[in-house]
């Protein structure tokens, strides 16, 4: 499984070790961190929810595509689900390759595709007491605001 979902903290040291290769000269990793502002709202915590069966399949396809498109040694992506706090790591992508150019390109490809294609959703909770499903509330026909309490 080169795409994994986990409900506990992502163990990047162990994930990185899976990418070690005597023939690899370059290693690029990406981490998505929970940040305190999004679109002008102060975020205090997040929840990630996944359609797990399909997320695992689609994520695996993305990593397989990266391995086909770029001459890589190894690639791996791990996405966290559940409740996260500020600065927690939501997603990790790691890629190793002979030369660095393709490791950068492939790492970016994987995170871009994961964000667009994998059925995972993020609910932000704001300092104001509001909360919202990212990409769903603003584009919905009748935006909903969930008041605290």
């Amino acid at each position, binding site marked *: 499984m080169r795409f994994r979902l986990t409900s506990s903290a992502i163990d990047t040291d162990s994930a990185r070790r899976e990418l070690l290769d005597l023939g690899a000269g370059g290693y690029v990793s990406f981490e*998505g961190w929970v940040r305190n502002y999004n679109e002008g709202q102060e975020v205090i915590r997040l929840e*990630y*929810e*996944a*359609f797990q*069966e*399909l*997320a695992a*399949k*689609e994520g695996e396809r993305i990593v397989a595509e990266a391995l086909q498109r770029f001459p890589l040694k190894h690639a791996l992506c791990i*996405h966290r689900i559940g409740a996260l706090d500020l600065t927690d790591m*939501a*997603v990790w992508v790691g890629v190793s390759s002979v030369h660095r150019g393709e490791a950068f390109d492939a790492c970016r490809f994987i*995170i871009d595709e*994961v*964000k*667009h*294609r*994998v*059925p*995972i*959703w*993020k*609910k932000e909770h704001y300092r104001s007491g509001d909360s919202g*499903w*990212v*990409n*769903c*509330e603003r*584009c*919905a*026909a*009748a*935006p*909903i605001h*969930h008041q605290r309490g």
Partner: protein
Amino acid sequence: MQLKIQYYALMREQAGRSEELLETSAATPAALYGELAARYGFTLMPEQLKVAVNSEFTDWSRRLSAGDAVVFIPPVAGG
């Protein structure tokens, strides 16, 4: 026929449930979404959604079969 419907994220909250078994005559996901949107007041338009049957993406015009597990997929926001 009977279908299994699973709801995620905003649609889970709007439906007030994670899943249900539904007796329906809707022949396609498109027809099914119309039925569910009317019942639950979903705010997302079909154009904003994808649909999966039996844990695989599929077309809105696919013929549904008894026992299919259907998921409507709101705009994703992983990462």
